[in-house]
């Protein structure tokens, strides 16, 4: 629990964690501006640090993977802010994925996930609140504390916890071996160094990286994937939408260009949640209303993560089809060959050359959904993920694992360049501490217990 109470910079999502119009991540603390500058570039090229209080900046957010979103950043300088510290509020488009990615970027850049009620508590301690308000804060913290304690407790039974604990056990093994060898130099203990140590440390780093990766994949399962249904007019996009959502969401007619606006729904396909958007058929048109619909469709195609591109199996591939294939071939896309109940004229192989994931179905007959489900799972690489193997439950846990991963990577580097083992050992212990934060234990105790259990040491 290093430095949990003041002096460091905390971050949290301040809007309800749900799909919504705007999401906000708030940071408070001495490094708030510095961290914001690491992840945000304003269009005016003015940095957050040089901005006066009560100002907003428009620009782009990015993390190690690249650009996250457009955002507006509001800057509040100490002491004139909610908490009395330097505060940055980052507003981006709503939706759990973007907001969480923004929060994570803050954490990777040096912020710490806030504890329950921590912003309010800081506000009180910095004299921004009266005594009576403080009483209410206490109740809030106490109740949230109970909740998070319960959440932590239930997480203990979870697969995540056990997975982390398996890594912790490995780390304790290495650390205890080092500790025994260092603290009992005169005892008959095998030297800990060389290849074995390198290998163990590398294995641990790999395990931690895997857990982090699984977290990110697992997020897809819980939070849903933004998905767009596209295709030229009248290939059956709306019929597919209605089939997947299980109700009449989109109006279906024989007339090409029926869908103008975007129709949305959140559906479950197997164990994946998709945020579906049915769009207007892509074609050049003179109808001003349809034209707007097509424009919206193109925009949504660009902002969605997963593409379901629908083709009519009873017709040959058109120029518009080919154009669409070219446009989306490098993105996560499943080609849906619809109307398999009719006579086939389409050349599937031409599509397959560009789009490996193909699902054949008949939306009107309601057949072939399993094929689509299988392709989506495969595409999202969910098949490699054992859903019972455990995924870290929330950002706080993820932050702990991320910190541990960073520190273990340092231990690995220290070993590589030939630093002395005291430094390596301290890195490993500090990584263990990060992980044990999830359970409230302390590394030094755990390591020493292991030393006495596993090694015959003592005068």
């Amino acid at each position, binding site marked *: *629990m290093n430095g949990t109470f003041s002096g460091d910079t905390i971050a949290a999502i301040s809007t309800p964690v749900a799909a919504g119009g705007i999401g906000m991540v708030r940071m408070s603390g001495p490094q708030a501006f510095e961290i914001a500058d690491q992840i945000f570039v304003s269009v005016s090229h003015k940095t957050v640090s040089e901005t006066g209080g009560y100002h907003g900046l428009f620009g782009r957010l990015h993390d190690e993977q690249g650009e996250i979103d457009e955002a507006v950043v509001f800057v509040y300088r100490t002491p004139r802010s909610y908490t009395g510290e330097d505060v940055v509020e980052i507003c981006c488009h709503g939706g759990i994925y973007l907001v969480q990615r923004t929060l994570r970027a803050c954490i990777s850049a040096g912020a710490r996930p806030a504890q329950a009620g921590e912003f309010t508590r800081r506000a009180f301690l910095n004299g921004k609140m009266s005594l009576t308000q403080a009483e209410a804060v206490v*109740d809030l913290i*106490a109740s949230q504390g109970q909740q998070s304690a319960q959440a932590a407790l239930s997480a203990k039974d979870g697969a995540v916890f056990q997975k982390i604990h398996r890594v912790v056990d490995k780390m304790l093994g290495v650390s205890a071996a080092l500790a025994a060898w*260092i603290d009992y130099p005169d005892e008959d203990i095998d030297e800990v160094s060389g290849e074995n140590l390198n290998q163990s440390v590398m294995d641990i780093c790999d395990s931690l990286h895997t857990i982090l990766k699984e977290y990110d994949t697992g997020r897809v399962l819980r939070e849903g994937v933004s998905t767009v249904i596209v295709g030229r007019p009248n290939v059956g996009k709306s019929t597919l939408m209605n089939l997947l959502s299980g109700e009449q969401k989109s109006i279906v007619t024989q007339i090409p260009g029926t869908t103008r606006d975007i129709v949305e729904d959140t559906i479950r396909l197997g164990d994946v949640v998709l945020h579906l958007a049915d769009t207007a058929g892509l074609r050049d048109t003179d109808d001003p209303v349809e034209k707007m619909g097509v424009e919206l469709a193109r925009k949504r195609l660009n902002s969605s993560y997963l593409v379901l591109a629908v083709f009519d199996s009873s017709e040959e591939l058109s120029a518009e089809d080919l154009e669409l294939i070219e446009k989306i071939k490098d993105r996560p896309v499943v080609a849906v060959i619809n109307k398999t109940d009719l006579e086939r004229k389409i050349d599937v192989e031409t599509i397959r050359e560009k789009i490996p994931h193909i699902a054949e179905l008949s939306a009107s007959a309601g057949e072939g959904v399993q094929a689509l489900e299988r392709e989506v799972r495969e595409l999202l690489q969910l098949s490699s993920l054992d859903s019972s193997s455990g995924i870290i439950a929330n950002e706080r846990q993820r932050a702990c694992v991320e910190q541990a991963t960073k520190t273990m990577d340092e231990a690995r580097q220290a070993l590589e360049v030939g630093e*002395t083992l*005291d*430094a390596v050992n*301290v890195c490993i212990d500090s990584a263990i501490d990060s992980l044990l934060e999830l359970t409230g234990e302390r590394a030094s105790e755990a390591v*020493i217990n292991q030393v006495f259990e596993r090694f015959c040491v003592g005068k």
Partner: protein
Amino acid sequence: MEYKMGDYEVAVIGAGHAGIEAALAAARLGAKTAIFTMSLDAIGNMPCNPSIGGTAKGHLVREIDALGGEMGKAADATFLQSRMLNRGKGPAVHSLRVQSDRDEYHKEMKHRLELQDGLDIIQAEICDIRTDENGALKELVTKLGAVYEVKTAIICSGTFLHGRIYVGDVSYESGPDGLHAAIGLSEALERLGIHLRRFKTGTPARVRRDSIDYSKLEVQAGDEPIIPFSFETPREGLKNQVVCHIAYTNEKTHQIIRDNIHRSPLYGGMIEGVGPRYCPSIEDKVMRFSEKPRHQSFVEPVGLHTEEMYLQGLSSSLPEDVQVQIYRSIVGFENVKIMRNAYAIEYDCIDPLDLKASLEFLKAEGLYGAGQFNGTSGYEEAAAQGLIAGINAARKVQGKEPVILDRASSYIGTLIDDLVTKGCSDPYRMMTSRSEYRLLLRQDNADQRLTPIGHEIGLISEERWQHYLHKQELIEQERKRIEKLTFGPSKELNEMLESRGTAPMETGAHASDLIRRPQVSYKDLEPFDTERPHLPDEVTEQVEIQIKYEGYIQKQLIQVEQMRRLETRKIPEDINYEEVRGLRLEAIEKLQRIRPHSIGQASRISGVSPADISVLLIYMESCKEK
């Protein structure tokens, strides 16, 4: 009949390693002090290993010295062999360990006590402790009925309280080394509401030097050059005078133990005390680690003027006849003659959660505890606590705030914080792995960490202080010089680099970057560094470590800064946690029991959550506003 015999500001009960430091520190700080001992001939006795230091323990001795304590100096004056352990594993875990001349160490310490102004040394057994109507300490009573009025007292009773020795099925009341046990004091403490519990420890046999065949054993020699414990002991002229030997148990030894394990009082359930995990008896090792084909034993001389040898690693509470069989089954020990048998000893001690971080009892004002009495083990751990208890008792009398060393300052601070925050379920031994800041808490920089504190307290002489300041200045100057120093690529320099197994340089390089390479030392650069001044080793050593480990040191310093912010938020002593709205029940119980002195300490208590700490902070702030 009782009679008045005097009055003291600080009374120290027990003259072992804790008591000595406590008495000297209190007297040196100007408190009128007395030290009581069961026997003047047992002052500074080493009832177990004739040795001082070891991993983490060596750090403690250096720290005691840096603060102005005595153990390091006496150890330097009486050592027979010195080794720097863990060379090659990194400077943070280098640890000094010496073999001591047991008799000389006792004489040295006894004489140092006798020469101390303001300190009375009294052979007497304290049997009662009395408080006034407010619960504050009032007087001590000896077995003979002498009454001493005291303002503060420090209990350093070691293994004497209700000491009971076990050898096989025989057990009897006794202190260590044939001294009698202390009987009345435990009852007096319980009358004061102090709860006692039983811990256990053990020691191996002492055998005759000429009954061992050394030609069958491995030799372990000391290290050169010798680095003394004390920063005041000159490094020149120190000599190793003895060697130690290593022997190994074998399958035959283990069979004897297995055949006789039913005769062990520990396995037979006679001993209720909790033994130290790190100091297992040989029967413990054999039974618990049955897969190990052999266990080692160090044969250590007890002194220059005695033929007794200490058999490290072979402590036992098996019957004497079994002990003889065990020892004689070891190669080289075939004809070994036991002079003193091995034994286990059980004794009363407290739960250190009953103490404040100043080592004063939470519920008995003016009464302090130190050493094994507090649940620790080891001479060095004891001395460290004795020093702090002595300082704080004297300061209390003088109306000053107690000295509390935090975890980032020292192993001493870590030791005490562990004791009073987490308690201990078996005798506590210091280990480097207990410190999260161990890259900062090195034995080589104990003076930088603690001598300024020692000076402020008043335990560091002006002469030593000036010497310290001069050394820091030299370190600083040389560091700055090195930071600015650059080298162009030259054939000789590149040859040196390659011979160390590291890449040659193509363009110029900073000297500090070269020193940061793990393969290159400060000394390696000497031939190329033409303007290098001549500096003492203790200075260049610091320059090198500070440069080499700068990255790690900086990282730990950031952690320390975070920790200290919480440490400086003091919790009022009279806080009633039951009144703090919003605290969880478990947290209330823990906080009431441990009564942390700071938010930092509170946050380290298991069962106190971050939410509880938030609630506590708000409560404290609200109190201020009211």
